[in-house]
Each structure stands twice: as C-alpha cells, then as structure tokens.
C-alpha cells in the first residue's frame, strides 16, 4: 500500500520541458494540452529582470478537491498507491473537477485544438476514441484514464500508473538510474536531464523522497486549499521558483 509522491528540486530544474514532451509522448497528449507543464514567469525592469519557471504535474492530492466534487465518482483516489485517477466510463464530462482543481491540471478532451490544423482530424479514430495516432502507446485502461480518451470526458495525469503500478512491491524509491527500476518510473521523472525529479513512497520513512522533503524544506503548492498535494517542491531560491499567487507581470501586459 504505497503512497507515491514526487519531489521536484527547483534549484536543479533547467526549464527545458523534457518532462512535458516525455509525458506527451508516453500519454499520447494532444499538442499543448500538457498534463505536465512548465510555466514561465518574469518580472522586473531591464536590465534587472527575473525569469522564473515552475514545472507542474498533477499533484495527486491526498484530499483532492476534484475527487470530492465529482458527481459520479469517475475521478477517484486509488487506495493502493494514492493515485488520483479517472474512470472514463463513468465520466459525464460535466467539468466540475476542472473548475474545482486549484492547480489547473485537468483537460476536457473535446476542446478546440491549440495547434491548428487539428491533429485529431489527421489521425481520426474508427472507434469512439478522440483520435488514433500511429504512435499511440500500447497501454489502454479506460477505467484508470490510461490510453487514448473517448469523447466527452476529462483527462488528467495518472502519475504514469501503467508504469508505477507494476513496480516491485515495497520499493521505497523509483529511481530511473537503477536499470531494473527504470521502466516503472513516470515518464517526466525518467527523462529529467538535471535529475530535478524524484519519485518514491511517501509512506516509507526511509525513502529518498521523504529524506529530500525533510532535509531540503519541501513545500506543497497552495497548501492553504487543503488539497494536500503528494508533489513537493524544493527551492533554495535560485533557478526555478514558486510563483507568487498574484503574478505581477504588469510590465509585460498591455
């Protein structure tokens, strides 16, 4: 009964977006509809300007507001692993979970394509799925939100459930640098070139993720909402940074 969690070291993050594109590849994401995104902010006046960035997956909250508002229990907290998952066969596409998620990490599948022409039209599906690209992954589990989505549902990050759930039982950390474990590591963690991401069991006191959170002042995003994320951020102030709530990008906006 692991409780999987992620630690993102903002001091090491280079803002390259490899997590984003790896997630896009692994989870057949539509262009720009990033389950895992890196958000950039800047403030200040030339020549003293601050550029910051912030990688943001789904937080897989312990007390997820998206789960509590779902009127059909289509989105649920998996008791074995702590994943917040979607059951596409229960989702009615009411989008209340999107409205209720403070982190903006849920995506309705039938919105207008960000990059035109719509790639869904280039690779249409002959079943009820939204599209059918030749490069889609082999994993397909609609009850857990894995695989190409059917129409009319909301999708979200699965913490790469299809990988993590197959990990050997009792492993404290899924470290991509250990060859025997790399196939069980979420895509965004596995590719991260500066190794800014760590994935492990928050229920095991000796896991590296717990040590990092304790030793390096791990913080959770928007903790005041009571969602209790299972993603923690480490920040010493350099490189990437947690943005303030009210972004002050006044100079950048008309």
């Amino acid at each position: 009964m692991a409780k999987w969690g992620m630690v993102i070291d903002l001091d090491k993050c280079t803002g390259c977006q490899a997590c984003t594109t790896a997630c896009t590849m692994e989870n057949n994401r539509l262009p720009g509809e990033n389950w895992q995104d890196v958000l950039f902010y800047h403030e200040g006046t030339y020549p003293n300007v601050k550029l910051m960035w912030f990688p943001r997956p789904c937080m897989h909250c312990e007390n997820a507001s998206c789960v509590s508002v779902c009127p059909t229990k289509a989105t649920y907290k998996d008791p074995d692993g702590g994943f917040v998952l979607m059951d596409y066969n229960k989702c009615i596409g009411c989008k209340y979970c999107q409205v209720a998620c403070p982190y903006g990490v849920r995506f309705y599948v039938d919105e207008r394509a960000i990059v035109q022409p719509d790639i869904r039209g280039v690779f249409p599906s002959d079943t009820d799925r939204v599209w059918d690209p030749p490069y889609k992954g082999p994993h397909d589990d609609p009850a857990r939100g894995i695989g190409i989505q059917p129409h009319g549902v909301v999708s979200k990050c699965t913490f790469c459930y299809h990988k993590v759930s197959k990990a050997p039982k009792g492993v404290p950390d899924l470290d991509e640098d250990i060859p025997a474990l790399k196939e069980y590591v979420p895509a965004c963690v596995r590719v991260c070139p500066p190794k800014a991401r760590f994935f492990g069991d928050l229920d095991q006191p000796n896991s590296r993720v717990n040590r990092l959170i304790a030793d390096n002042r791990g913080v959770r995003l928007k903790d005041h909402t009571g969602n209790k994320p299972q993603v923690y951020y480490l920040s010493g102030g350099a490189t990437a940074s947690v943005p303030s709530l009210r972004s002050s990008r006044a100079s950048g906006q008309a």
Partner: protein
Amino acid sequence: MSVTTKQVGIMLLALTGLLVTGWLVFDSLSTHGHAAFNTDNLGIFWGFPIVIYDYFLLTSTGLAMVATMAILFGGDDFRPIIRRAVWLALAGLLGGVAVLMLELGHPLRALWAIPFSFAFSSPLYWKVMAVSFYVLSLLILLARMLKPDWSMADLRANAVVTLVLALSVTAIAGVVYGSQSFRPFWASGDIPVAFIFESLLGGLAFIIFFSYLAYAFNPAAVPASVKRLFDDRLTGLLALAIFIHLLFVVARMSSGLYGNVEGLQVWRHVATSPLFLAEVFLGLLLPLVLLTYPGTRIRPWAQIIAALLVMNALLIARYEYIIGGQLVPLFKGAWAPDLLSYMPSPTEWLLLLIAVFLSNFVNAFGEVTLKLGREGSAHP
C-alpha cells in the same frame, strides 16, 4: 384574432424556431463537437451553456417559489397566477435541462451515473438529486392543479414539499460555486442566499411578463383579478426583490473591489464592463424606478418593460458570475494573459435560443391546452 389564436401562433413560432435552431445546433455539434463552444482548457471550463442552464433552472425554482409561497401565504389574490407559474416553472426547467444535455460530455450516462454514484461529497450530486425530486414534486403539484376544480387549500402539503425542494435546488446551485474557496470571486457563504433572492426575483419578473404574454400584451384582455394582483401586490414585491438583489450586488462588488485575494481582480474588470453597467442601471435601477414611481407603477407597459429588463439583468448577472469566477487563469505561465477572455460562440448563442424556444413552446402549449389562467377556488 382571439388570445388563444395568438397563443397558437406563439406556439408555432416557438416550434419553428426550435426546429431551426435545433437543426443548426445539431449541424454544428455533429461536425465540431464541443469545439464549437468557446470554452477551453485554459480556465473557461464552464461557458455560456452552463450560464443558460443555471439561469433557466433558477428561473424555474423562482417561479415554483412564487407559486408555492402564494399557495401557502398569499391568499386568494394570488390564484390567477399559480397554475401559470407552476407550468412555466416546468417549461423553463425543460429549456435549461435541454441545454445542459447538449453541454455535457455524456448526457445519457449522467442520467444513471449520478443517482447511483452516491457521491455525497459532491454538490453536483445533491443538485441533481434535488432537481430530480423537484421535478417530481412539480409534476405532482401540477397534476393535482390541473383538475378544473383545483383549490389552494388542497395543495398546501404539495406546496410545502415543492417550496423546500425549490429552495434546496437553488441553494445547492449556489453551493456549487460558493464552495470553491480558491475562487474568491465565487466563494462566499452567502451565495446560496443570494441565489435564492435572485431566483425569487426572476420568478416574479417572469410571471408578470408571461401573464401579459398570455393575454398577448393586450391590457384590455387581462382579467381584473390579475391586474389587481399585479398593481396591489406583485409590482411591490418585484421592486423589493430588485432592491434586495441590488444590495447583494453592491455588497459583493465592494468587497470584491477592495479585496486583494488572487481572483478578486476580476471585479475591476467586471465593474467597468458595459454589460455590468447595463445590468445595474438598465436592468435593475430603471425597473426599480418604473415600479416605484407612482406615475408608472400601475401602467401595464411599465410592468412589462420592468419585468423584461429584470429578466435580462439576471441573465447578465448569471453570466458575469459564472464566467467571472473563471477569468483568472490557474497556473498557466507567462503566455496566459492576466485575465482570460471569453465570448460565447455562435453555437452557444443558439443554445440560448433553443432554451427560449423550447420553454416558450411548452408554455404556449400549456396556455393553449390547459387554461393556465383558471383560478380555481380558495376553499373546497
């Protein structure tokens, strides 16, 4: 031309409109799916269709409140509007639900998935349950009321149940938004109360407007009992409801403008938008004047215009509220604007027409076939 003929005309007009818009919407949705809406994954998750749905739903509960409270507390004077209000509540609900069905990703699945989910933590679950029972109670009320010799006293128990359910639906609809604490534009404990007053305001405006419509806006055709009820009671109540609603608007706007929490900056945008100004000055203050100024208060045209303005103001209010709460993008990075922008797409506007035509068709059908103006008796 008799009033009934004109009602048949309205019914056919609404049916034609419904068929035309229905075809256009079918055309658009079967080609583009929900991409025909201007919603997105940046932050505008609930767009105009949800505004329309909630508007019609709350109008329905407002009408139900007016009808049931009239039964319970209003006395004989209110008899001329009760059947009409209940039928109109049903018609409005149908219009709203039709739009919701076109908005949902899986409308049919929703019919079974929600009730059997037992998702007690979700306001939407309770809202759907409340709406279901509300519809049921409306139907029962209506069935008993359709007897030619219906009497108010017989319906007291039904009225209590319907009133409680109407209040519940409205309050829960408020909780759906008011509970979203990280969206301060929405979140407030008094939102369910505000919703109830808005609902009531809508119910009053709608019943005035549609009563006149029932007589084809011909003051001469309006029975004296109806006219007396309007002049003596309803215009005053409507004015009071406008005033209370204004208090809510001003209160929320003031704390919104002075508050510094992320999300409240929307108020600066809203409070200066022409739509909002139209809502307050044309939609609320002008009717207030029309309904309180002795020279216009009892003029049918003034009552019709006031009701119509209020009906529009409430649609704007619903729009500003639902969209406004989503305008601040959540963690979207430098490319996202400080505030998102949203305009209903043509298809979304068509959904409003569908709701309007459908409700009007049902209402006119009732007017033609059910003698909605039948006043019944106060005592058995």
